[in-house]
């Protein structure tokens, strides 16, 4: 599986994301500079935390216009996996790939601490390895993480199981305690907590590992061969790779 981690000017969790993916999945990861337009060679892309463009204007507001976002948009449309962590989540909401917006914490403080989260939905490729209702420990580190959307959108998100994780102890004033949301298709996920900083016991928690393992399992169980792959699986090979309950094609 091929992973990309986008680096914007001002990203600072890109290396954490790269290390988490390589150590948890054993896959190789490319760091992709924000000027790269084409991401067609990747199965999954991570938009990491940080302060892209210094958070000028609004967090994520300028990064969304960088060339790499066109590639991210194409991956989202093609059903590839897009994961936005912290500032990456802010960029995805600014780009309109995820609903809502992230505002200044209601108490105006920057919060950097381990936070208990409840898994609300495991239907997506990002949270498939978790149980619904499971409580996981994942750190947060942000000053602008207050999730906001209008009431109608919030109702829709809850009703369609698109709230992936919520805070058990709301650290920022997020509406409905929302910590992370999915797009309609379920292949774009953004969250303020940092699963890449919870992948080993010495970090205080290894509960974030399964985000990357879930993504890997999803991608590697896809029967579809990538364009450009030299070896095209024969029909016989394909039936062996398809597990019960999985659908062919898209």
């Amino acid at each position, binding site marked *: 599986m091929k992973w990309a981690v986008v680096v914007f000017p001002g990203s600072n969790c890109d290396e954490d994301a790269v290390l988490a993916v390589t150590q948890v999945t054993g896959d190789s990861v490319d760091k992709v500079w924000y000027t790269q337009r084409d991401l067609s060679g990747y199965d999954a892309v991570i938009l990491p935390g940080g302060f892209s463009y210094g958070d000028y*204007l609004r967090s994520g*507001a300028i990064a969304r*216009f960088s060339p790499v976002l066109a590639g991210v948009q194409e991956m989202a449309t093609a059903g590839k996996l897009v994961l936005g962590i912290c500032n990456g989540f802010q960029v995805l909401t600014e780009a309109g790939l995820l609903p*809502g*917006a992230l*505002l*200044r914490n*209601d108490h*105006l403080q920057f919060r950097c601490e381990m936070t208990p989260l409840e898994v609300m939905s495991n239907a997506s490729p990002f949270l498939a390895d978790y149980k619904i209702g499971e409580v996981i420990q994942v750190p947060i580190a942000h000053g602008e993480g207050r999730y906001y*959307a209008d009431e109608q959108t919030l109702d829709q998100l809850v009703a369609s199981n698109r709230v992936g994780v919520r805070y058990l102890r709301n650290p920022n004033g997020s509406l409905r305690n929302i910590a992370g949301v999915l797009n309609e298709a379920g292949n774009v996920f953004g969250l303020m907590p940092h699963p890449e900083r919870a992948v080993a016991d010495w970090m205080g928690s290894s509960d974030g590992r399964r985000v990357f393992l879930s993504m890997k399992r999803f991608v590697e169980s896809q029967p579809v061969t990538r364009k450009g792959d030299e070896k095209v699986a024969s029909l016989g090979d394909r039936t062996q790779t398809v597990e019960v309950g999985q659908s062919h094609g898209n």
Partner: protein
Amino acid sequence: MSNYVAKVQVQLKASVFDPQGHAVEQALHSLGHGGVRRVRMGKSMEVHLEAADEQSATAQVRQMCETVLCNPVMETFSFTLEIEKNGDEVDPVGQLAEIAQGRQNRT
């Protein structure tokens, strides 16, 4: 072509809690300004631009607000337009104030 200055004001929607405004409001109360009912913080920007005429300048600034300067999920914008002569010297061009309500039109 003429030079214009657009003075853009971006505010959080009334339905969105503004913690900065709230903190300033509390400070004003503690200084004895008991009559202060509400404070809302916002952003003001000056956009200096060259355009063929007022209509063109207005349309351009409106587009800038809708795409970049304001996030319609949580903010609203308004702006006024003035003609810029030399440096800081400006002439207001009538009543060109524009107001657009933010809409959640992106998913």
